């Protein structure tokens, strides 16, 4: 036991697996055993080795804290009475750190301690409290529950991460596709129509009969209408202004269009135009469009105030309406996929979206995205 007691790495792996490096990547759950008595540690290790998990040990509160800094434990078994930092204090410190804020802790104590210390244990975040000598089967099954819980939450985290990456991928693919289709439609189709019109005009100039001239005239008008339709479709997919003039001009234009389309008055406060990263610009613009869609659909507002702020670090957007105000229940409701989309878009570039609504006093949406996209 002495080599375990002096090992600074404090990693003991059952069944002869290489410690530390190998265990870092092992799919096993990590369990931390903390006791100042080598004998107790040994007993616990023996007892729990059948679970087949990665058991790590610490002989003091300080050592436990160090390990908790670098590892995510499925559960900790913590002796209450230790020299130096005692079990309660260790638990408090462990729980005060972000990484181990939610780590389940089971206290172990030798003495038939009175109720008050038990309450102290629960206060600092214990999930359970066992007296020594522990009943092996009880301890084992309790630890097994936490190991299972830990596995599930790890899997949940993984799939959350995958979904987020998938969403990011879909957003960027859709954006590329839209830009591509818009360009094709606008440039190719639009230019062919222009050429066609020139041909018809050429023809018209050579005609002398009135009915024929009337025909070419109406052909020209038809072509003009088609060009306008093409332009409308292309702009709807992706406003060419975003690429030509940047997000500030595009936001200003979109605000004007919105007022024209809905009769809701828009006031936009825009900074002088600056060149911003294209992905950041697109993100900001799409979020802005989503905000306006929500205003038109739900707010019953008669006025929208828009402010775009660009400084060296961030580009910020504030949109305030004077409508009915979004309710908290709508912020997280099932129908709020559009809002979720805004958050996800912003998150992709390290930004954030904050929405606050006061029923009867309008809704305010603040978006902030770093100017420099994350590498």
């Amino acid at each position: 036991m002495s080599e375990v007691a002096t090992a600074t790495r404090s990693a003991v792996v059952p069944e002869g697996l290489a410690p530390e490096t190998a265990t870092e990547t092992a799919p096993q759950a990590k369990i931390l055993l903390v006791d100042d008595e080598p004998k107790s540690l040994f007993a616990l290790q023996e007892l729990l080795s059948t679970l087949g998990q990665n058991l790590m040990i610490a002989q003091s509160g300080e050592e436990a804290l160090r390990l908790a800094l670098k590892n995510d434990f499925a559960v900790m078994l913590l002796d209450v009475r230790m020299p130096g930092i005692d079990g309660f204090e260790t638990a408090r410190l462990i729980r005060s750190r972000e990484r181990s804020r939610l780590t389940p802790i089971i206290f172990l104590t030798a003495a038939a301690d009175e109720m008050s210390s038990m309450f102290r244990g629960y206060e600092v975040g214990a999930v359970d409290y066992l007296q020594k000598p522990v009943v092996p089967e009880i301890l084992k099954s309790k630890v097994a529950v936490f190991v299972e819980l830990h596995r599930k939450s790890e899997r949940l985290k993984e799939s959350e991460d995958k979904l987020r990456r998938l969403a990011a991928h879909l957003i960027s693919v859709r954006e590329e596709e839209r830009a591509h289709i818009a360009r094709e439609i606008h440039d190719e189709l639009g230019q062919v129509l222009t050429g066609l019109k020139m041909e018809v005009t050429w023809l018209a100039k050579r005609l002398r009969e009135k009915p024929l001239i009337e025909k070419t005239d109406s052909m020209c008008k038809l072509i003009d209408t088609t060009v306008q339709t093409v332009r409308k479709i292309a702009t709807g997919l992706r406003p060419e202004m975003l690429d030509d003039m940047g997000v500030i001009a595009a936001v200003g234009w979109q605000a004007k269009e919105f007022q024209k389309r809905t009769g809701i008055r828009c006031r936009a406060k825009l900074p002088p135009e600056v060149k911003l990263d294209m992905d950041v610009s697109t993100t900001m613009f799409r979020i802005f469009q989503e905000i306006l869609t929500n205003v038109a659909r739900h707010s019953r507002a008669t006025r929208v105030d828009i402010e775009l702020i660009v400084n060296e670090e961030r580009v910020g957007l504030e949109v305030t309406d004077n409508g009915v105000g979004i309710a908290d229940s709508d912020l997280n409701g099932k129908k709020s996929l559009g809002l979720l989309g805004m958050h996800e878009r912003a998150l992709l570039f390290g930004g954030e979206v904050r929405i606050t609504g006061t029923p009867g006093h309008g809704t305010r949406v603040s978006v902030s995205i770093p100017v420099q996209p994350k590498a």
Partner: protein
Amino acid sequence: MTEVKVIIADDHPVVRQGLRQMLAVEQDLTVVGEARNGQEVVELSRRVPWEVAVLDYNMPGKNGLELIKELRQRYPGRAVLILSMYPEDRYAVRALKAGAAGYLTKESAPEELVSAIRKVAGGGRYVTPTLGEKLALELEDNRGKPLHETLSDREYQVMWMIASGKTVRQIADELFLSPNTVSTHRTRILRKMNMKSNAELMHYAIAHHLVD
């Protein structure tokens, strides 16, 4: 009649061909060269003598504004005329500010293009009547508050709805207001804007681009 030498640039062959045909029938205009992109325009402008360059706004390579500025810098006395797919309300002012002598959309009638080329060749500027009107309106708007700005937000919305052809009933339903309230708004709007009828309101809204 002096001859005007014209460069045309567009990345689309159909458009170049159309332009060439269109200008070929004009005795006083000669196409001296064609380019497919910004780079070619720059090279061409060095190689051949020219007075007017008719450029597409959006060609591969250099963007329209850069190209205008570059040509203006090198050849201050010569004219750059933009012929663009993009609507003039968003792009024309920028192009003119960058130094273009005129801005036409590709929907413009060929006669318009021809007269624009003649005008800018003589050192003038060419602005379409629509754009001219818009600029005039903006000037007017800057001098005093335009009438619609005197309306409250709610009145503005009701005005917009009337101008869009909605009835009092429809407006009341959409805004969750009583028809009476809407009528009251309407009366106040007409008074503030010094008008007598919905028709006048519609006319105003269209002229000021408040509705589509």
